[in-house]
């Protein structure tokens, strides 16, 4: 995990400043600031429809921004080409496509960013194996992803993101549908990655076993940042749909009615 070109190590790995975005001519992000520093684990929280996924997708260029600035590793996103340094777990319920594919085939596509002309060498195949071992899916490597359970799909998606051995992990609800034991396994994986110097931006609904890892939490509401600081205590309870949120860290501790925002 080395920088390919000289860059200022003090640069944040992700920096969003005043980012606005519209989906279907409806403002979804209304000027959000979000910074992830090197080695930091930042949780992005908020109710359904608050714009978490949209924020993450502006970073990877899947959603066009209508204003503001985005930098990745200190480079404006439009000029950023070093995608092998970024691992991404999209918000998905399945890793399957319209044709059967094995777990290895799906995870291997995460290695393409490091493979020249799409040719996977021995080192690449070993990296894929390591990624599968990290999420405890080695024994299912040759099975079709169509034959997996929901939580196993999620683990495959995470392995695919790990396959390029990224310095920055962007994960959109990686724990959705994953049982507690597997969450512990994934938390341990994430801890290893962070210990090795990775930075992480995570969209979560419940902190769960990841809580001790999280350095900072950013809470979105209706496309605006309403909290940026230490993770709110016991967010797991509060994240339940329909519950009133009271974030102890916000000065104006105003209840957030999640039910009304989606």
């Amino acid at each position, binding site marked *: 995990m080395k920088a390919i070109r000289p860059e200022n190590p003090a640069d944040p790995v992700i920096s969003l400043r005043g980012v606005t975005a519209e989906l*279907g001519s409806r403002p979804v992000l209304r000027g959000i600031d979000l910074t992830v520093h090197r080695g930091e684990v930042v949780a992005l929280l908020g109710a359904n429809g608050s714009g978490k996924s949209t924020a993450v997708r502006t970073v990877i260029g899947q959603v066009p921004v209508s204003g503001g600035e985005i930098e990745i590793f200190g480079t404006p996103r439009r000029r950023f080409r070093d995608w092998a340094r970024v691992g991404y777990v999209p918000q998905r319920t399945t890793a399957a*496509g319209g044709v*059967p*594919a094995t777990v290895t085939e799906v995870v291997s*596509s995460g290695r*393409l960013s490091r493979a020249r002309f799409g040719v996977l060498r021995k080192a690449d*195949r070993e990296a894929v*194996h390591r990624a599968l071992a990290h999420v405890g899916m080695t024994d299912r490597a040759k099975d079709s992803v169509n034959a997996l359970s929901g939580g196993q799909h999620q683990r495959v998606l995470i392995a695919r993101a790990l396959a390029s051995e990224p310095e920055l992990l962007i994960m959109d609800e990686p724990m959705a549908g994953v049982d507690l034991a597997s969450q512990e396994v994934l938390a341990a994986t994430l801890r290893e990655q962070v210990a090795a110097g990775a930075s992480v931006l995570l969209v979560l609904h419940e902190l769960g076993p990841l809580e001790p890892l999280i350095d900072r939490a950013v809470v979105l509401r209706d496309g605006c940042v309403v909290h940026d600081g230490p993770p709110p205590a016991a967010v797991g309870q509060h994240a339940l749909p329909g519950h009133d949120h009271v974030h102890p860290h916000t000065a104006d501790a105003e209840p957030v009615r999640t039910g009304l925002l989606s």
Partner: protein
Amino acid sequence: MEILNYAFMQRALLAAVLVGITAPAVGIYLVQRRQALMGDGIGHVAMTGVGLGFLLSTSPVWMATAVAVVGSVLMELIRWYGRTRGDIALAMLFYGGMAGGVMLINLAPGGSNANLSSYLFGSLSTVSQGDVLAICVLAALVVLVTLGLRRQLFAVSQDEEFARVTGLPVRALNLLTAITAAVTVTVAMRVVGLLLVSALMVVPVAAAQQLSRSFAATFAIAVTIGVGVTLGGTVTSYYQDVPPGATIVLLTIAVFIALTALATPLARRRARAVAAATGGEAGATDCVLPEAAAGAGTAPQPAPEKVPDSRTPAPR
């Protein structure tokens, strides 16, 4: 084989093999991205190209290729930008293309819908020397793209959003897929016909899925089925004097039904083999209560999620 003594049959069989290879090779990516009917749409648009070819008295194959490529690029652009009512725009493209073909061919001097019919449903006797040359060149392009870029196309077709983060040129690859599909449609046009092309792109892939767990195997089986049914259909069509396109498509569907019927017992056998291989302890397929399995005196262990490393398969 007396069938090979006729030059037109040699041409027809060569064209059939190439169609059998290319149609499933492109179709698998369309099925993977859940756009199975895209080939059908391109087929409709290509009819305008055939009509134009007649009207301008140039080669209908090349004209159909040009128009199909333009149409497929338009469809891809509609997919990007036309989020709202994309299906309506596509429908207009499909039926506009079909109506345009019928209209143009009637305007062509001496043209009638009878000429169009051989392009719609395929015909063996009319595959000309020039057609075969065009089909060979186009088929070579299709094979080059679908095999040479298989990892990239796999990634983009499996998960477009993720592919963007691997730095792949997603838009360029999408356009390439669309153009390759358009080229394949015109390759297949002379043998199976524009209205039946899509079947040969989709049904062999669907049939292959019944047997396979991996993308690579699906690809190989689909192409094998494709070549088998195009050859079989062409030969049958010659001896029985039935239309080749319809014969090939019916044969493909028969293969699909046969493989589907075969798949269930095969999967059961495979599951038994796996159960026998992983352990061999009695009753591997039955549930065992943890108390019965736990040894005396040992503290209960948390159920390990990972399988012991000894069981992990060696790197390929």
